[in-house]
């Protein structure tokens, strides 16, 4: 039988039992669509997070107190019991490193804000003049913190858009005063609305000089220090210089952790990549289930068409021809299922993008290829057994079946 005839014959056989074929195509397409939609979701989440971090800037290094060991236990970790805290003097010292451009110390806490009889809790961030550029934020009114010594606790504040709206409404905010805890602060600037970012929402933030925040929270330690190197190429040099400076300042011990955006991005990329892969794996299980359904459906087809198989044998069809015909039928149904699933999956991803515009939910090409490939392979693989069963039928007994 010629390939074209085999194809036509198998297609007619598949169309001969519409319900059976429709069920099989449905099962297959659900599996494929699940892979496409779920990986679109996972990969969209990955891209979203990576995009958020990328906004931080490529030349940024964050200094955290304490040593996070990734390569096993360091003997040093037994010698010192508690790591030394980070201080504003550490931050000032880092500014002297040749490859460092900007430094912003960070002291963070919550405080009760009040102004004009209105009261609310908000996050207070103590930092310095460079924070605005480091975080790539903008102002909608007034100015940012002045460039002054890290140890000066002036009573100035820059507020987020939400706080401005809640406390001052339509009136001007710059020049007004606001209480934070037991301190009176003068508002000198308002941050431009930024919306929800990673970690902190700058719209609900109150920014004060770092010494002011430390005094408010009665501490002389820092939450972390944000450092910007002189360009992306200087990042490695800057990290080495910073380590040298901090080691010298901390009695020869490096009890801080330096995180660069690259490292964070790499980690998130790996975590979310693994998540996407896991999700794809779960979806692939539904494909395997679809494969078993294919086998079942084809076995039923062989049983239903036993007399026909006997007839084909009597008319001179070889076992191989009958095997091929049934395999092609299974393949056609799988292809149809994969195609429908492909379209369904893309429609689903489109719907997700419509519902959550911030999420770039595009299915990765590898996932789409893998889903369609797996559908075809399972369809064919699980079609082999029924096809062989058909080819091995005894013609006399098959013909006797009605």
């Amino acid at each position, binding site marked *: 039988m010629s390939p074209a005839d085999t194809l036509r014959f198998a297609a*007619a056989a598949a169309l001969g039992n519409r319900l059976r074929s429709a069920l099989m195509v449905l099962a297959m397409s659900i599996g494929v669509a699940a892979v496409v939609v779920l990986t679109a979701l996972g990969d969209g989440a990955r891209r979203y997070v990576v995009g958020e971090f990328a906004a931080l800037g490529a030349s940024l290094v964050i200094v955290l107190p304490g040593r996070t060991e990734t390569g096993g236990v360091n003997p040093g970790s037994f010698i010192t019991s508690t790591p030394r805290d980070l201080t504003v003097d550490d931050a000032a010292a880092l500014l002297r490193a040749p490859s460092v451009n900007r430094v912003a110390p960070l002291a963070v806490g919550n405080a009760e804000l009040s102004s004009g009889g209105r009261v609310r809790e908000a996050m207070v961030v103590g930092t310095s003049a460079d924070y605005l550029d480091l975080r790539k934020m903008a102002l909608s009114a007034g100015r940012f913190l002045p460039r002054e010594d890290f140890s000066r606790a002036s009573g100035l504040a820059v507020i987020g858009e939400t706080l401005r709206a809640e406390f001052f409404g339509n009136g001007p905010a710059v020049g007004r005063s606001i209480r934070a805890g037991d301190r009176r602060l003068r508002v000198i600037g308002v941050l431009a609305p930024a919306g929800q970012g990673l970690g902190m929402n700058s719209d609900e933030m109150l920014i004060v000089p770092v010494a002011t925040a430390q005094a408010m929270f009665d501490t002389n330690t820092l939450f972390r220090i944000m450092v910007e190197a002189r360009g992306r190429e200087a990042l490695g040099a800057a990290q080495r210089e910073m380590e040298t400076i901090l080691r010298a300042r901390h009695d020869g011990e490096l009890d801080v952790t330096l995180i660069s955006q690259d490292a964070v991005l790499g980690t998130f990329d790996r975590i979310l990549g693994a998540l996407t892969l896991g999700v794809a794996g779960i979806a692939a299980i539904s494909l395997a289930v679809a494969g078993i359904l294919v086998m079942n459906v084809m076995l039923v087809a062989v049983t239903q068409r036993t007399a026909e198989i006997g007839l*084909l044998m009597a008319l*001179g*069809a*070889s076992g191989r021809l009958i095997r091929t015909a049934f395999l092609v039928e299974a393949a056609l149904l799988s292809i149809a299922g994969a195609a429908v699933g492909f379209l369904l999956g893309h429609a689903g991803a489109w719907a997700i993008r419509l519902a959550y515009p911030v999420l770039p939910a595009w299915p990765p090409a590898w996932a789409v290829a893998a889903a369609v490939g797996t559908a075809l392979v399972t369809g064919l693989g699980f079609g082999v057994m029924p096809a062989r069963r058909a080819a091995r039928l005894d013609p*006399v007994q098959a013909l006797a079946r009605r």
Partner: protein
Amino acid sequence: MAQIELEHIERIFRLGDSEVHALRDVSLRIEAGEYLAVMGPSGSGKSTLLNLLGLLDRPNAGHYRLEGRDVTTLSADEQARVRSARIGFVFQSFHLVPRLSAAENIGLPLMLAGVAPAERAQRVAQALADFGLEQRAGHRPEELSGGQRQRVAIARATIMRPAMLLADEPTGNLDRSTGQEVTALLEALNAGGTTLIVVTHDPVMGARARRRVLMEDGAIRRDEAVAPAAP
């Protein structure tokens, strides 16, 4: 050399512990162009004999020579090729493929044999004309009468121009007059040179054959050549 030579054929079915001796020591020679009726009571082994002749079944012992060639030892694929080229089957229950039209059913053996579509269409058209089925070419089997269905089946059985036609009770599902039409059709094909072997319960049809083989309990009881009855 006879077209068909059976020598000491045995066919035994095993069902659990019991054995059914469907054919015992059957020897038979059939010349090309013969018209032979196989008769006998139910369960006497007529269908088993026909299946063996059609290479759908293998004997447990004995030899089957078809046109001088021992076909009992052929592989399944080789037997399929012989069936395709030399043997046509007509069944009591027609065995048409329900989703295919009359024309497609008739063309099925050509398609299986890989005959090109153009030649196929031409030969099917000729067969439709020969069997008076032009008006029914596009009809599905369920839209045809019993007699028309059997005519489609006979057209299909002869489309490869086989050397012999094997018919197992071809008129068993038809009323008397359509049965006679079908019988006449088969006899016309036989008159054209095709060997015709018919299994039948119908004494009228049996009486028309030029040779009658009577089977009983798996063995040939009587084998008589007779002058054809007057039509």
